[in-house]
Protein backbone atom coordinates (compact mmCIF):
# COMPACT_ATOMS: atom_id res chain seq x y z
CA UNK A 1 0.00 0.00 0.00
CA UNK A 2 1.40 3.35 -1.02
CA UNK A 3 0.94 6.14 1.56
CA UNK A 4 0.81 9.64 0.15
CA UNK A 5 2.20 12.78 1.76
CA UNK A 6 0.37 15.14 -0.52
CA UNK A 7 -3.34 14.37 -0.88
CA UNK A 8 -4.87 16.45 -3.64
CA UNK A 9 -7.86 15.53 -5.76
CA UNK A 10 -10.14 17.06 -8.40
CA UNK A 11 -13.30 15.46 -6.98
CA UNK A 12 -14.38 13.60 -3.86
CA UNK A 13 -16.68 10.60 -3.52
CA UNK A 14 -17.86 10.55 0.10
CA UNK A 15 -18.86 6.93 0.69
CA UNK A 16 -18.75 7.00 4.47
CA UNK A 17 -21.39 4.65 5.97
CA UNK A 18 -22.55 3.63 2.47
CA UNK A 19 -22.71 -0.15 2.65
CA UNK A 20 -20.56 -2.58 0.64
CA UNK A 21 -20.40 -2.83 -2.39
CA UNK A 22 -21.11 0.89 -2.95
CA UNK A 23 -17.33 1.53 -2.88
CA UNK A 24 -17.06 -0.55 -6.05
CA UNK A 25 -19.99 1.08 -7.85
CA UNK A 26 -19.59 4.78 -7.14
CA UNK A 27 -15.99 5.37 -8.36
CA UNK A 28 -16.97 4.56 -11.94
CA UNK A 29 -19.84 7.09 -11.75
CA UNK A 30 -17.57 9.83 -10.40
CA UNK A 31 -14.80 9.10 -12.92
CA UNK A 32 -17.27 9.69 -15.76
CA UNK A 33 -17.31 13.39 -14.81
CA UNK A 34 -13.50 13.73 -14.68
CA UNK A 35 -10.96 14.29 -17.49
CA UNK A 36 -8.07 11.93 -18.15
CA UNK A 37 -5.27 12.64 -15.69
CA UNK A 38 -7.57 14.04 -13.01
CA UNK A 39 -7.67 12.44 -9.55
CA UNK A 40 -10.66 11.14 -7.61
CA UNK A 41 -10.60 10.98 -3.82
CA UNK A 42 -12.68 8.25 -2.16
CA UNK A 43 -13.50 8.71 1.52
CA UNK A 44 -14.74 5.58 3.23
CA UNK A 45 -15.03 3.89 6.61
CA UNK A 46 -14.96 0.41 5.03
CA UNK A 47 -11.74 -1.56 5.67
CA UNK A 48 -12.36 -3.82 2.68
CA UNK A 49 -11.89 -0.84 0.37
CA UNK A 50 -8.12 -0.94 1.07
CA UNK A 51 -7.90 -4.16 -0.93
CA UNK A 52 -10.90 -3.70 -3.20
CA UNK A 53 -10.10 -0.28 -4.67
CA UNK A 54 -6.58 -1.14 -5.94
CA UNK A 55 -7.99 -4.40 -7.34
CA UNK A 56 -10.86 -2.51 -8.99
CA UNK A 57 -8.36 -0.08 -10.58
CA UNK A 58 -6.26 -2.96 -11.92
CA UNK A 59 -9.31 -4.65 -13.39
CA UNK A 60 -10.71 -1.50 -15.00
CA UNK A 61 -7.43 -0.02 -16.23
CA UNK A 62 -7.41 2.99 -13.90
CA UNK A 63 -4.36 4.07 -11.86
CA UNK A 64 -4.45 3.58 -8.12
CA UNK A 65 -2.39 6.46 -6.72
CA UNK A 66 -2.34 5.62 -3.01
CA UNK A 67 -3.87 6.27 0.37
CA UNK A 68 -3.83 9.20 2.79
CA UNK A 69 -4.58 9.26 6.49
CA UNK A 70 -7.59 11.37 7.39
CA UNK A 71 -6.21 14.01 9.74
CA UNK A 72 -9.62 14.75 11.27
CA UNK A 73 -10.94 11.22 11.68
CA UNK A 74 -8.67 8.23 12.13
CA UNK A 75 -11.58 5.85 11.43
CA UNK A 76 -11.78 6.96 7.81
CA UNK A 77 -9.62 6.17 4.78
CA UNK A 78 -8.89 8.36 1.79
CA UNK A 79 -7.99 6.54 -1.40
CA UNK A 80 -6.91 8.17 -4.67
CA UNK A 81 -7.55 7.08 -8.27
CA UNK A 82 -6.11 8.81 -11.36
CA UNK A 83 -8.34 8.59 -14.42
CA UNK A 84 -6.51 6.82 -17.25
CA UNK A 85 -9.32 6.53 -19.76
Amino acid sequence: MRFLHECKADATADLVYRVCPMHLLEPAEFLKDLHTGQVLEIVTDYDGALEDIPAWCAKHGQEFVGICEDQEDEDLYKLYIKKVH
Partner: protein
Amino acid sequence: MKTVYLDHAAATPVRPEVLTAMLPYFTERFGNPSAVYSLGSEIKEVIEAERAKVARLLGAPEEQIIFTSCGAEANNLAVKGASLAHLKKGRHVIVSAIEHHSVLNSARYLEKFHDFEVTFLPVNRFGQVEPERLQKALTPATVLVSIQHASNEMGTIQRFPELSAICREQGILFHTDAVATAGQVPVDVKELGVDLLTLSGPALGGPKGIGALYFRRGLRLVPQIHSGIQENGRRGGTENVPGIVGLGAAAELVHRELPEKISYLRALRDRLAAGINRGVADVLFTGHPEERLPGHASFCFEGIEGEALIFLLNSQGIFANTGSACASKALKVSPTLCAMGISPEIAQGSLVFTLDAANREDEVDYVLEKLPPAVEKLRSFSPVWRKKMAAVSGG
Protein backbone atom coordinates in the same frame (compact mmCIF):
# COMPACT_ATOMS: atom_id res chain seq x y z
CA MET B 1 -76.61 5.58 7.98
CA LYS B 2 -74.60 8.54 6.76
CA THR B 3 -70.87 8.21 7.42
CA VAL B 4 -68.48 11.12 7.76
CA TYR B 5 -64.75 10.45 7.98
CA LEU B 6 -62.83 13.26 9.66
CA ASP B 7 -59.63 11.53 10.79
CA HIS B 8 -57.40 12.13 7.78
CA ALA B 9 -54.33 12.67 9.98
CA ALA B 10 -54.56 8.98 10.91
CA ALA B 11 -54.99 7.74 7.34
CA THR B 12 -56.35 8.95 4.03
CA PRO B 13 -58.00 6.75 1.43
CA VAL B 14 -55.71 6.02 -1.50
CA ARG B 15 -56.69 8.31 -4.36
CA PRO B 16 -58.13 6.39 -7.35
CA GLU B 17 -55.48 7.91 -9.66
CA VAL B 18 -52.80 6.70 -7.25
CA LEU B 19 -54.19 3.17 -7.13
CA THR B 20 -54.40 3.04 -10.93
CA ALA B 21 -50.74 4.05 -11.17
CA MET B 22 -49.72 1.40 -8.64
CA LEU B 23 -51.60 -1.62 -9.97
CA PRO B 24 -49.27 -2.70 -12.84
CA TYR B 25 -46.38 -2.92 -10.37
CA PHE B 26 -48.09 -5.72 -8.47
CA THR B 27 -48.46 -7.87 -11.55
CA GLU B 28 -46.87 -7.45 -14.99
CA ARG B 29 -44.18 -4.95 -13.88
CA PHE B 30 -42.96 -6.98 -10.91
CA GLY B 31 -39.24 -7.11 -11.68
CA ASN B 32 -36.58 -6.56 -9.04
CA PRO B 33 -35.01 -3.11 -9.64
CA SER B 34 -31.54 -4.47 -8.81
CA ALA B 35 -31.69 -7.03 -11.63
CA VAL B 36 -29.59 -6.23 -14.71
CA TYR B 37 -32.08 -7.55 -17.28
CA SER B 38 -34.66 -5.16 -18.68
CA LEU B 39 -37.60 -6.37 -16.59
CA GLY B 40 -35.64 -5.14 -13.57
CA SER B 41 -33.62 -2.22 -14.92
CA GLU B 42 -36.78 -0.60 -16.32
CA ILE B 43 -38.24 -0.67 -12.82
CA LYS B 44 -35.13 1.08 -11.51
CA GLU B 45 -35.85 3.88 -13.98
CA VAL B 46 -39.45 4.05 -12.72
CA ILE B 47 -38.19 4.44 -9.15
CA GLU B 48 -35.95 7.32 -10.19
CA ALA B 49 -38.86 9.04 -11.96
CA GLU B 50 -41.01 8.71 -8.84
CA ARG B 51 -38.15 9.99 -6.71
CA ALA B 52 -38.11 13.12 -8.88
CA LYS B 53 -41.84 13.67 -8.24
CA VAL B 54 -41.38 13.47 -4.46
CA ALA B 55 -38.35 15.76 -4.70
CA ARG B 56 -40.40 18.31 -6.69
CA LEU B 57 -43.01 18.46 -3.93
CA LEU B 58 -40.27 19.30 -1.44
CA GLY B 59 -38.20 21.63 -3.67
CA ALA B 60 -35.29 19.21 -3.28
CA PRO B 61 -32.76 17.58 -5.63
CA GLU B 62 -34.01 14.10 -6.50
CA GLU B 63 -30.82 12.32 -5.40
CA GLN B 64 -31.45 13.63 -1.88
CA ILE B 65 -34.59 11.53 -1.34
CA ILE B 66 -34.45 8.10 0.34
CA PHE B 67 -37.53 5.88 0.19
CA THR B 68 -38.42 4.14 3.46
CA SER B 69 -41.19 1.82 4.65
CA CYS B 70 -43.06 4.59 6.51
CA GLY B 71 -42.70 7.95 8.19
CA ALA B 72 -41.57 6.28 11.42
CA GLU B 73 -38.65 4.61 9.64
CA ALA B 74 -37.68 7.91 8.04
CA ASN B 75 -37.74 9.54 11.49
CA ASN B 76 -35.56 6.72 12.87
CA LEU B 77 -33.07 7.11 10.03
CA ALA B 78 -32.95 10.86 10.53
CA VAL B 79 -32.59 10.95 14.30
CA LYS B 80 -30.45 7.84 14.83
CA GLY B 81 -28.69 7.72 11.46
CA ALA B 82 -27.58 11.36 11.46
CA SER B 83 -26.67 11.46 15.17
CA LEU B 84 -24.60 8.27 15.02
CA ALA B 85 -22.81 9.54 11.91
CA HIS B 86 -21.60 12.59 13.85
CA LEU B 87 -20.47 11.05 17.14
CA LYS B 88 -17.15 12.87 16.94
CA LYS B 89 -18.97 16.19 17.31
CA GLY B 90 -20.87 15.20 20.46
CA ARG B 91 -23.64 13.16 22.01
CA HIS B 92 -26.47 15.58 22.66
CA VAL B 93 -29.77 15.70 20.78
CA ILE B 94 -32.76 17.98 21.27
CA VAL B 95 -36.34 17.05 20.42
CA SER B 96 -39.57 18.79 21.28
CA ALA B 97 -41.70 17.21 23.99
CA ILE B 98 -44.59 16.74 21.56
CA GLU B 99 -42.85 14.78 18.81
CA HIS B 100 -44.21 11.58 17.30
CA HIS B 101 -43.21 8.41 19.16
CA SER B 102 -40.79 7.51 16.37
CA VAL B 103 -38.75 10.63 17.14
CA LEU B 104 -39.11 10.50 20.92
CA ASN B 105 -38.20 6.83 21.11
CA SER B 106 -35.31 7.18 18.65
CA ALA B 107 -33.90 9.85 20.96
CA ARG B 108 -34.45 7.59 23.99
CA TYR B 109 -32.66 4.77 22.13
CA LEU B 110 -29.62 7.02 21.65
CA GLU B 111 -29.75 7.91 25.34
CA LYS B 112 -29.98 4.28 26.49
CA PHE B 113 -27.61 2.52 24.10
CA HIS B 114 -25.17 5.21 22.93
CA ASP B 115 -24.72 7.43 26.02
CA PHE B 116 -26.40 10.42 24.44
CA GLU B 117 -27.93 13.21 26.48
CA VAL B 118 -31.43 14.13 25.30
CA THR B 119 -33.23 17.41 25.91
CA PHE B 120 -37.00 17.37 25.55
CA LEU B 121 -38.00 20.94 24.75
CA PRO B 122 -41.25 22.24 26.27
CA VAL B 123 -43.86 24.06 24.19
CA ASN B 124 -46.03 27.11 24.88
CA ARG B 125 -49.82 27.08 25.28
CA PHE B 126 -50.27 26.95 21.49
CA GLY B 127 -47.95 23.97 21.20
CA GLN B 128 -45.06 25.92 19.70
CA VAL B 129 -41.39 25.62 20.61
CA GLU B 130 -40.12 29.09 21.58
CA PRO B 131 -36.94 29.89 19.59
CA GLU B 132 -35.35 31.36 22.73
CA ARG B 133 -35.78 28.05 24.54
CA LEU B 134 -34.13 26.19 21.68
CA GLN B 135 -31.25 28.66 21.67
CA LYS B 136 -30.69 28.14 25.40
CA ALA B 137 -30.81 24.34 25.11
CA LEU B 138 -27.96 24.13 22.58
CA THR B 139 -24.56 23.00 23.84
CA PRO B 140 -21.20 22.48 22.10
CA ALA B 141 -22.07 18.73 22.08
CA THR B 142 -25.42 19.18 20.32
CA VAL B 143 -25.44 17.15 17.13
CA LEU B 144 -29.07 17.24 16.03
CA VAL B 145 -32.36 18.99 16.73
CA SER B 146 -35.68 17.46 15.69
CA ILE B 147 -38.83 19.58 15.79
CA GLN B 148 -41.95 18.61 13.87
CA HIS B 149 -43.29 20.94 11.18
CA ALA B 150 -46.77 20.64 12.69
CA SER B 151 -48.54 18.41 15.15
CA ASN B 152 -51.32 16.19 13.85
CA GLU B 153 -52.85 16.38 17.29
CA MET B 154 -53.52 20.11 17.61
CA GLY B 155 -52.57 21.37 14.17
CA THR B 156 -50.13 24.07 15.25
CA ILE B 157 -47.40 24.85 12.74
CA GLN B 158 -43.98 25.47 14.30
CA ARG B 159 -41.99 28.64 13.72
CA PHE B 160 -39.94 27.95 10.61
CA PRO B 161 -37.38 29.02 9.44
CA GLU B 162 -36.72 30.79 12.76
CA LEU B 163 -36.01 27.51 14.59
CA SER B 164 -33.86 25.95 11.88
CA ALA B 165 -31.87 29.18 11.39
CA ILE B 166 -30.70 29.04 15.01
CA CYS B 167 -29.20 25.61 14.36
CA ARG B 168 -27.76 26.43 10.96
CA GLU B 169 -25.81 29.36 12.43
CA GLN B 170 -24.11 26.94 14.81
CA GLY B 171 -23.63 24.07 12.37
CA ILE B 172 -26.15 21.81 14.13
CA LEU B 173 -28.24 19.42 12.05
CA PHE B 174 -31.98 20.13 11.95
CA HIS B 175 -34.61 17.50 11.20
CA THR B 176 -38.33 18.06 10.85
CA ASP B 177 -41.14 15.53 10.74
CA ALA B 178 -43.46 16.89 8.03
CA VAL B 179 -45.85 13.93 7.97
CA ALA B 180 -48.73 16.09 9.20
CA THR B 181 -48.02 18.98 6.86
CA ALA B 182 -46.89 17.65 3.48
CA GLY B 183 -50.41 17.26 2.08
CA GLN B 184 -51.81 20.34 3.83
CA VAL B 185 -49.42 23.26 3.36
CA PRO B 186 -46.39 23.97 1.14
CA VAL B 187 -43.32 22.07 2.34
CA ASP B 188 -40.08 23.34 0.78
CA VAL B 189 -36.83 22.17 2.32
CA LYS B 190 -34.98 25.37 1.39
CA GLU B 191 -37.68 27.66 2.78
CA LEU B 192 -37.88 25.61 5.95
CA GLY B 193 -34.06 25.60 6.20
CA VAL B 194 -33.86 21.94 7.24
CA ASP B 195 -31.17 19.31 6.74
CA LEU B 196 -33.55 16.36 7.03
CA LEU B 197 -37.29 16.05 6.46
CA THR B 198 -39.72 13.15 6.84
CA LEU B 199 -42.89 12.48 4.92
CA SER B 200 -45.32 9.57 4.69
CA GLY B 201 -47.54 8.05 1.98
CA PRO B 202 -50.87 7.68 3.78
CA ALA B 203 -50.86 11.33 4.86
CA LEU B 204 -50.77 12.42 1.20
CA GLY B 205 -53.47 10.26 -0.35
CA GLY B 206 -50.88 7.58 -1.03
CA PRO B 207 -50.65 4.02 0.28
CA LYS B 208 -49.50 2.81 3.66
CA GLY B 209 -46.09 1.13 3.82
CA ILE B 210 -44.15 3.92 2.15
CA GLY B 211 -42.39 7.03 3.40
CA ALA B 212 -39.42 9.15 2.44
CA LEU B 213 -36.57 11.07 3.98
CA TYR B 214 -34.99 14.17 2.45
CA PHE B 215 -31.35 14.66 3.46
CA ARG B 216 -29.12 17.60 2.60
CA ARG B 217 -26.38 16.97 0.05
CA GLY B 218 -23.18 15.79 1.72
CA LEU B 219 -24.86 14.77 4.95
CA ARG B 220 -23.68 11.40 6.24
CA LEU B 221 -26.19 8.88 7.59
CA VAL B 222 -25.59 5.55 9.29
CA PRO B 223 -28.07 3.16 7.65
CA GLN B 224 -30.66 1.70 9.98
CA ILE B 225 -31.45 -1.24 7.69
CA HIS B 226 -28.22 -2.88 6.59
CA SER B 227 -28.36 -4.75 3.34
CA GLY B 228 -27.22 -4.05 -0.21
CA ILE B 229 -27.03 -1.23 -2.71
CA GLN B 230 -30.67 -0.17 -2.62
CA GLU B 231 -31.21 3.55 -2.08
CA ASN B 232 -27.52 4.03 -2.93
CA GLY B 233 -26.38 2.03 0.07
CA ARG B 234 -28.26 4.17 2.57
CA ARG B 235 -31.33 1.97 3.14
CA GLY B 236 -31.22 -1.73 2.36
CA GLY B 237 -34.04 -4.04 1.32
CA THR B 238 -35.77 -4.65 -1.99
CA GLU B 239 -37.74 -1.57 -2.91
CA ASN B 240 -41.51 -1.42 -2.36
CA VAL B 241 -42.09 -0.49 -5.98
CA PRO B 242 -45.93 -0.20 -5.91
CA GLY B 243 -45.60 1.92 -2.76
CA ILE B 244 -42.96 4.15 -4.34
CA VAL B 245 -45.12 4.62 -7.44
CA GLY B 246 -48.08 5.41 -5.17
CA LEU B 247 -46.10 7.96 -3.20
CA GLY B 248 -44.86 9.59 -6.39
CA ALA B 249 -48.36 9.79 -7.84
CA ALA B 250 -49.76 11.20 -4.59
CA ALA B 251 -46.95 13.77 -4.37
CA GLU B 252 -47.67 14.90 -7.91
CA LEU B 253 -51.38 15.37 -7.12
CA VAL B 254 -50.62 17.30 -3.94
CA HIS B 255 -48.16 19.52 -5.80
CA ARG B 256 -50.81 20.35 -8.41
CA GLU B 257 -53.84 20.74 -6.15
CA LEU B 258 -52.45 22.24 -2.97
CA PRO B 259 -53.23 25.98 -3.39
CA GLU B 260 -56.90 25.28 -4.13
CA LYS B 261 -57.07 22.64 -1.42
CA ILE B 262 -55.77 25.00 1.28
CA SER B 263 -58.46 27.62 0.77
CA TYR B 264 -61.17 24.96 0.52
CA LEU B 265 -60.07 23.21 3.71
CA ARG B 266 -59.72 26.44 5.64
CA ALA B 267 -63.31 27.46 4.82
CA LEU B 268 -64.62 24.02 5.73
CA ARG B 269 -62.63 23.93 8.97
CA ASP B 270 -63.80 27.41 9.95
CA ARG B 271 -67.42 26.38 9.33
CA LEU B 272 -66.91 23.40 11.66
CA ALA B 273 -65.13 25.40 14.37
CA ALA B 274 -67.64 28.27 14.30
CA GLY B 275 -70.53 25.82 14.46
CA ILE B 276 -69.07 24.02 17.45
CA ASN B 277 -68.41 27.30 19.25
CA ARG B 278 -72.04 28.28 18.64
CA GLY B 279 -73.53 24.90 19.52
CA VAL B 280 -71.55 23.83 22.58
CA ALA B 281 -70.69 25.74 25.77
CA ASP B 282 -67.41 25.37 27.68
CA VAL B 283 -65.28 24.19 24.82
CA LEU B 284 -61.62 25.04 24.35
CA PHE B 285 -60.21 25.36 20.81
CA THR B 286 -56.70 23.88 21.15
CA GLY B 287 -53.58 24.82 19.23
CA HIS B 288 -52.73 28.11 17.53
CA PRO B 289 -55.74 30.07 16.21
CA GLU B 290 -54.01 31.13 12.95
CA GLU B 291 -50.69 29.30 12.56
CA ARG B 292 -52.28 25.90 12.07
CA LEU B 293 -53.05 23.32 9.43
CA PRO B 294 -55.98 24.40 7.24
CA GLY B 295 -57.92 21.15 7.61
CA HIS B 296 -57.37 20.76 11.33
CA ALA B 297 -59.78 21.54 14.18
CA SER B 298 -59.12 20.36 17.72
CA PHE B 299 -61.11 20.92 20.88
CA CYS B 300 -61.39 20.02 24.54
CA PHE B 301 -64.93 19.65 25.84
CA GLU B 302 -65.12 20.25 29.57
CA GLY B 303 -66.64 17.60 31.81
CA ILE B 304 -66.48 14.63 29.44
CA GLU B 305 -64.04 12.04 28.14
CA GLY B 306 -63.03 12.29 24.51
CA GLU B 307 -63.08 8.54 24.15
CA ALA B 308 -66.74 8.33 25.17
CA LEU B 309 -67.53 11.10 22.71
CA ILE B 310 -65.73 9.18 19.93
CA PHE B 311 -67.96 6.15 20.64
CA LEU B 312 -71.13 8.22 20.58
CA LEU B 313 -70.12 9.92 17.34
CA ASN B 314 -69.14 6.54 15.90
CA SER B 315 -72.70 5.34 16.56
CA GLN B 316 -73.85 8.27 14.39
CA GLY B 317 -71.41 7.34 11.61
CA ILE B 318 -68.90 10.08 12.43
CA PHE B 319 -65.23 9.09 12.65
CA ALA B 320 -62.90 11.43 14.52
CA ASN B 321 -60.05 11.04 16.99
CA THR B 322 -59.13 12.05 20.51
CA GLY B 323 -55.51 12.79 19.70
CA SER B 324 -52.79 11.34 17.57
CA ALA B 325 -53.70 7.98 16.07
CA CYS B 326 -51.01 6.17 18.07
CA ALA B 327 -51.42 7.99 21.38
CA SER B 328 -55.20 7.77 21.63
CA LYS B 329 -55.16 4.01 22.19
CA ALA B 330 -52.30 4.01 24.64
CA LEU B 331 -53.06 6.88 26.96
CA LYS B 332 -56.01 8.38 28.74
CA VAL B 333 -54.71 11.92 28.61
CA SER B 334 -52.72 13.36 25.74
CA PRO B 335 -49.11 14.21 26.66
CA THR B 336 -49.18 16.83 23.93
CA LEU B 337 -52.08 18.70 25.53
CA CYS B 338 -50.48 18.36 28.97
CA ALA B 339 -47.21 19.74 27.54
CA MET B 340 -49.22 22.76 26.36
CA GLY B 341 -50.28 23.43 29.97
CA ILE B 342 -53.85 22.18 29.61
CA SER B 343 -55.04 20.50 32.83
CA PRO B 344 -55.62 16.72 32.68
CA GLU B 345 -59.34 17.28 33.52
CA ILE B 346 -59.78 19.47 30.45
CA ALA B 347 -57.36 17.48 28.25
CA GLN B 348 -59.32 14.26 28.68
CA GLY B 349 -62.19 15.84 26.72
CA SER B 350 -60.05 16.10 23.60
CA LEU B 351 -61.56 15.71 20.14
CA VAL B 352 -59.65 16.13 16.88
CA PHE B 353 -61.11 16.56 13.41
CA THR B 354 -58.79 16.38 10.41
CA LEU B 355 -60.46 17.20 7.11
CA ASP B 356 -59.54 16.47 3.54
CA ALA B 357 -60.59 17.87 0.17
CA ALA B 358 -63.03 14.97 -0.22
CA ASN B 359 -65.11 16.26 2.72
CA ARG B 360 -68.18 18.36 1.92
CA GLU B 361 -70.17 21.09 3.71
CA ASP B 362 -73.12 18.77 4.28
CA GLU B 363 -70.80 16.41 6.17
CA VAL B 364 -69.65 19.24 8.42
CA ASP B 365 -73.28 20.25 8.97
CA TYR B 366 -74.11 16.65 9.90
CA VAL B 367 -71.37 16.76 12.57
CA LEU B 368 -72.73 20.09 13.82
CA GLU B 369 -76.17 18.49 14.12
CA LYS B 370 -74.98 15.37 16.00
CA LEU B 371 -72.13 16.68 18.14
CA PRO B 372 -73.91 19.11 20.55
CA PRO B 373 -76.52 16.56 21.73
CA ALA B 374 -73.74 13.96 22.14
CA VAL B 375 -71.75 16.33 24.36
CA GLU B 376 -74.91 17.23 26.30
CA LYS B 377 -75.75 13.57 26.84
CA LEU B 378 -72.29 12.73 28.17
CA ARG B 379 -72.29 15.77 30.42
CA SER B 380 -75.62 14.68 31.91
CA PHE B 381 -73.87 11.50 33.16
CA SER B 382 -70.70 13.29 34.25
CA PRO B 383 -70.08 13.87 37.98
CA VAL B 384 -67.32 16.33 37.05
CA TRP B 385 -69.76 18.38 34.99
CA ARG B 386 -72.49 18.23 37.66
CA LYS B 387 -69.99 19.46 40.23
CA LYS B 388 -68.98 22.33 37.99
CA MET B 389 -72.61 23.30 37.33
CA ALA B 390 -73.36 23.22 41.04
CA ALA B 391 -70.40 25.50 41.71
CA VAL B 392 -71.51 27.92 38.97
CA SER B 393 -75.06 28.11 40.31
CA GLY B 394 -73.74 28.47 43.89
CA GLY B 395 -75.34 25.18 44.96
